[in-house]
């Protein structure tokens, strides 16, 4: 086998993307737990992870620049490098949105305006989408990617239902507007995270089949 160093660099790139993926899963999961339980301590612990995610993303970018400039990858290698760049950006946004979520517990002192049962379900589906989109990348499985992206519909449905519910509650009782608005932001952040998972799934389909598809 020729170009051993190059192949190692490609493997390393894939592993770095998966590390950023794991980091984003952790930050998302903990931020959701922190916001549901209004656990400020867990929220602060989560916020402290953001610089680590930044470092991972930066490392991925540097290795992509090196690969493009020095190795000039072609065909499926080129698709891997381009997909890795896109995945890194999507994962970094997922981290950013999760960090926004982790900032909410510090702003709501004494309990939510409603039980967050639907929101928890929405977050669970999103976490599944994230896990499966990453596994699809790892195993180069376009079908798994498509299946993961298909669940975006469930997320959107819950989003609109909770949205309407919160608006109606605010219309009836203006004293809850401030706290309810944070929940509107919360569901919006989760919905956006699910969209980024769909982007990841699109990148995986592109990586494995060279086809550009729209999955959300």
């Amino acid at each position, binding site marked *: 086998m020729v170009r051993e160093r190059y192949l190692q660099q490609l493997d390393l790139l894939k592993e770095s993307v998966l590390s950023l993926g794991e980091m984003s899963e952790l930050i998302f999961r903990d931020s959701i737990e922190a916001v549901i339980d209004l656990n400020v301590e867990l929220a602060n612990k989560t916020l402290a992870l953001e610089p680590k995610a930044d470092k991972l993303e930066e490392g991925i970018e540097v290795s992509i620049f090196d690969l493009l400039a020095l190795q000039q990858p*072609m065909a499926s290698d080129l698709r891997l490098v381009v997909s890795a760049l896109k995945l890194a950006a999507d994962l970094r946004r997922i981290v950013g949105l999760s960090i926004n979520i982790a900032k909410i517990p510090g702003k709501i002192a004494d309990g939510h305006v409603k039980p967050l049962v639907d929101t928890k379900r929405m977050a669970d589906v999103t976490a599944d989408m994230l896990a499966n989109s990453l596994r699809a990348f790892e195993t180069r499985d376009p079908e798994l990617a498509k299946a993961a992206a298909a669940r975006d519909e469930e997320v959107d449905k819950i989003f609109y239902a909770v949205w309407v519910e919160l608006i109606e509650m605010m219309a009836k009782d203006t004293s809850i507007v401030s706290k309810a608005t944070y929940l509107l932001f919360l569901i919006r952040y989760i919905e956006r995270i699910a969209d980024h998972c769909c982007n990841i799934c699109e990148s995986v389909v592109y990586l494995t089949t060279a086809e550009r598809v729209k999955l959300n």
Partner: protein
Amino acid sequence: MTEAVQNVTQSQIEVENLDLWYGEKQALKNISMQIPKNSVTALIGPSGCGKSTFIRCLNRMNDLIKNCRVEGKVSIEGKDIYGKEVDVVDLRKHVGMVFQKPNPFPMSIYDNIAYGPRIHGVSKKDLDGIVEGALHSAAIWNEVSDRLKSPALSLSGGQQQRLCIARTLAVKPEIILFDEPCSALDPISTSKIEELIMNLKKDYTIVIVTHNMQQAARISDYTGFFLMGELIEFGQTRQIFHSPLEKSTEDYITGRFG
């Protein structure tokens, strides 16, 4: 072969079931290819895969090699170039060739370009115009216009190669074959030749053999991948370098072997 290539209405070069032997050894196996007019077609593949042998079939340069036997059909503009009535000298006027190493004649810059037109009977009064036009088209006029009487061998390697391209253009071919035209050149000269090739396709059909994958990807519209005498894959360059259909093509262009 991809549909995109099959659907091209005007293919200038048509190769059908071409086999070639050097003595007992078969160097090309059942090659079929359609090369569209006014396009750049790159041929890639590891050393010894037959790509140079193939390109030399297109102007019958292999006729010069002892024990070389060709079967199958090569047509240019619908005419079988291996037909009995074909004048090989005339064929090579229509199908010019530029080689790996610049090979100017040991004479002046002017005479290098004028040589071909002169032997084809162009009158003296037309020569100046032809020489200037060819040097312009080969993007070297500005560098040599004030020293046309200087020896061609006093030019740099990159300039010599462009001079050879100008010499080819001077006899007004329709097709130009390039056999690794940049492999003896520095990066700047290489860029100049690449620019030149991309400009020339407006007026000529170009087939280029190259070992430089990025060069093939940059300048060609179609790419053919050869391996052990066979044409493994032929298609639009973007598709070949982005998502080749054959595993061996993928392995070659990603540097897994070769």
